[in-house]
């Protein structure tokens, strides 16, 4: 499913940044007064789940200065030391969150609020789910970038009309099956569709990550740039998911897609035209009951539109029979465990959908809170300026000073809310991801059903063939010496039966294979989902707690600054 890119990589990265963090905190607090340099290299500890064991191994209320950046070190709570407390504004997010625009009547505030350089790492748009692939040190890292417009070559009747976008797909890997460790190709969206279709055929029963939608309507409606960017992100996510699937990452289809320069050498469709022709040619013969040689391998693929019309009709009839007659089909889905799991998957999907929705509402509410808090802060800043400018009495200046403290705190808190939210989004995204994954589960389950249907169809086909043969034999045995045409028919029938038997065996083998795939994939899904959800919960909780503490400190400071009034209130 999804896996973290480079476990080893990230760990090394954390250690380096942690050291930096430690040295900074231990430094003289005056260092922190220039907020721009304080925590610039410290990357978001929260977004990487590989971190979690670091974070959790630290004591909650830590004495040492190298404590977890998320869990505020005691100096945070010590507001007698305002410098240290005040400036731990943002060591995590890119400057965009720090773009609070107001006039710098207080340099301190400006520095505090100006925020910090973004860490140098490349943006990771997808959740990094931390399951390592089978062997812990191999990796495939795929990047999609550089969209370019290209012309459809000469085949089009209208010159110069057909343009399309290609994307640069760069792969870095140390897996041996690939030629080399870094390579790039250009691919268009159609190629991705082809890849996805081919994988679906070759890997029936597996939970194959669903590809991005074609978005036919949106591509017309949206701004071109926006749409292209959206698609780029989606493609990257998709390819990365493929690369973390333990089986698919080793597939030929993927290898070809990632490496082969020029036109993608995978069949774009299952040659619908010729198959239709085949089917159409065979159909009259079949309708008249003549035997047809059906290659067993063809049986293995599910009946597709145009491919084998008669087979389609037969299987449809069979499934209807299964449904309505209620008679036990020859090969029933008797795997109770599977049926139970299927039911569970269905439940899971429903609850995931619900939780995913509520997660979105939560994120929206947090965002609104941050926004309103920020607006409140800005309003008070304006008021402060006003009172200061118009001040006649000292009480006005005092009030202006009080207001400024509140305003500054509100603006800071607002930024914290927004940072908190950015991380919350990433964590709860796990829910969305798994919800999306349910599509591939559906796909795998339906692979199984159609394989079963094929088996059932062949079995009832066989039984009807047998009974026809019996009838013919009974009829011809009554004629002494035999009925030449009947005997010939019996021979043909027997041949058909043999072929159909072979096909049945192939179909059963395929069905068993798919069943096994389903089983291992379900196991994998459960295992990985457990780990990912656990990490999600931990990350979410740590995130919430960490930022809540930061926000608490900001307000505690103001409460302290206004504590004189506490004695006055009744």
């Amino acid at each position: 499913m999804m896996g973290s890119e480079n476990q080893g990589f990230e760990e090394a990265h954390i250690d380096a940044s942690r050291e930096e963090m430690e040295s900074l905190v231990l430094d003289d607090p005056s260092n922190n007064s220039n907020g721009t340099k304080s925590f610039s290299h410290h990357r978001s500890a929260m977004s990487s789940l590989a971190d979690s064991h670091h974070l959790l191994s630290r004591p909650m209320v830590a004495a040492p200065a190298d404590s977890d950046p998320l869990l505020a070190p005691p100096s945070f709570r010590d507001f007698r030391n305002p410098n240290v407390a005040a400036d731990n504004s943002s060591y995590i997010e890119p400057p965009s969150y720090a773009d609070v625009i107001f006039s710098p009547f207080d340099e301190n505030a400006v520095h505090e609020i100006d925020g910090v350089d973004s860490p140098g790492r490349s943006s990771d748009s997808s959740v990094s789910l931390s399951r390592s692939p089978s062997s812990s040190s191999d990796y495939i890292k795929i990047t999609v970038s550089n969209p370019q417009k290209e012309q459809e070559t000469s085949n089009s009747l209208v010159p110069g009309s057909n343009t399309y976008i290609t994307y640069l797909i760069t792969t870095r890997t140390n897996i041996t099956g690939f030629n080399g460790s870094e390579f790039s190709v250009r691919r268009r969206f159609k190629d991705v569709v082809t890849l996805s279709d081919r994988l679906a055929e070759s890997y029936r029963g597996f939970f194959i990550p669903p590809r991005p939608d074609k978005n036919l309507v949106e591509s017309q409606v949206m701004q071109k740039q926006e749409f292209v960017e959206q698609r780029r992100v989606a493609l990257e996510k998709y390819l990365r998911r493929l690369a973390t699937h333990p089986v698919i990452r080793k597939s030929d289809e993927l290898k070809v897609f990632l490496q082969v320069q020029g036109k993608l050498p995978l069949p774009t469709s299952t040659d619908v035209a010729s198959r239709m022709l085949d089917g159409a040619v065979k159909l009259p013969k079949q309708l008249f009951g003549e035997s047809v040689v059906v290659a067993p391998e063809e049986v293995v693929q599910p009946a597709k539109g145009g491919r084998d019309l008669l087979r389609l009709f037969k299987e449809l009839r069979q499934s209807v029979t299964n449904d309505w007659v209620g008679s036990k089909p020859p090969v029933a889905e008797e795997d109770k465990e599977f049926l139970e799991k299927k039911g569970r998957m269905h439940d899971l999907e429903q609850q995931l959908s619900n939780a995913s929705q509520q997660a979105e509402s939560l994120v929206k509410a947090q965002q609104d809170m941050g926004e309103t808090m920020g607006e409140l802060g800005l309003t008070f800043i304006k008021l402060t300026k006003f009172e200061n400018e118009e001040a006649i009495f000292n009480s006005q200046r005092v009030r202006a000073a009080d207001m400024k403290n509140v305003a500054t705190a509100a603006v800071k808190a607002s930024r914290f809310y927004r940072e908190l939210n950015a991380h919350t989004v990433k964590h709860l995204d796990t829910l969305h991801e798994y919800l999306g994954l349910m599509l591939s589960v559906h796909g795998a389950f339906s692979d199984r059903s159609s394989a079963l249907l094929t088996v059932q169809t062949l079995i009832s086909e066989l039984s009807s063939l047998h009974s026809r043969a019996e009838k013919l034999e009974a009829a011809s045995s009554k004629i002494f010496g035999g009925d030449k045409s009947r005997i010939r028919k019996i021979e043909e029938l027997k041949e058909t039966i043999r072929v159909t038997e072979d096909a049945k065996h192939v179909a059963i083998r395929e069905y068993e294979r798919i069943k096994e795939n389903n089983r291992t994939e379900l196991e994998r899904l459960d295992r990985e989902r457990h780990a990912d959800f656990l990490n999600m919960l931990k990350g979410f909780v740590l995130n919430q707690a960490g930022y809540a503490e930061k926000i608490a400190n900001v307000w505690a400071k103001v409460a302290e600054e206004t504590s004189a009034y506490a004695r006055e209130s009744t």
Partner: protein
Amino acid sequence: MITAQRSSSGSSHSPRSPSSQPYLSISVTDPVKLGNGVQAYISYRVITKTNFPEYQGPEKIVIRRYSDFVWLRDRLFEKYKGVFIPPLPEKSAVEKFRFSAEFIELRRQALDVFVNRIALHHELQQSEDLRTFLQADEETMERLRSQETGIFKKKPADLMQIFKEVQTKVSDVVLGKEKPVEESNPEYEKLKNYIFELENHLSEAQKHAYRLVKRHRELGQSLSDFGKAVKLLGACEGDALGKAFSDLGAKAETLSVRLQKEAHQLLMNFEEPLKDYVRAVQSIKATIAERANAFRHQCELAETIKLKEINLDKLMLTRSDKVGEAELEYRELKLESEEATRRFENIVRLMNEEMVRFQDQKTLDMGIAFHEFAKGQARLANNIADAWRSLLPKLEACSS
């Protein structure tokens, strides 16, 4: 309840007994809904504790309704021109129907503050109308209420109109559109501008404060929904992970309750004081209007007197027999004019004093509001941090 201290200035009452400090302490309590449908109203119990000699004894309890408070405010406004009369909570015709507990509590609190501010004010606390309000029986109050024809008796729409006129007049003068019957006092102009701009700023702040209250409620609601969804998901998953989900969901629901509580606190202790501030500024605007009226009256009389003077001289020159009459009129007018001038100057003097008090009081009021706000936010955030952190040990145990 705030205990009022009597100021020594301007007091012409009997000497205080040295043994006890004078106090006038009032509480507005026990809101009770009376009447039905459109006629429904809230009555409050007003308890007065005092040792002021003018009052009937140490404690008095009366029943009052909102319009009684309005009567008191109107009377004070009439009698004490120049003083910034403490503001009343809005007469909300719509909310009244719904009578939510929150609305009732906010109103009760605001009325309590109103009446105690009067009790604290060294001039207003001596008002006879205050005494009537605090002590008279309900029938008397009802009678007095129906007689009232003050400025505030007008419908809110009219009131708004009056305020608007004051505003336009001020801005007109500021913009140089309209010529005088306005004072040409640059300091006073500055003050008027200050007041009008202040109202804008404060209204904006109050609006955002109110929105912040809503955001707390919304966040609480979404946490609750999220918690429920997560619990259901946990039920699906089962075993340790399921339990973890379940615990998280329960925590989220707990925090949701906490957020709703904080929203209420925020409304009472932060948004309401801001609203009160806005009302106070509007009350000052009313005083500004009064001062303008007084000034205009003074000017008109001065004009009239000039004319009368000219006329009198003319009559004296012609040795008319109307001289005596005219002289009488002139003298009367002179007295009136002096009275008008006195009144105007009194307003000016009072306003200056009031501004000082106003600024001091507001710094105090807002300081308290800010303190409560910050305390509340800090407490909330700490509760949230603690709640989430309490889940960590179990989550740790899960993954090991």
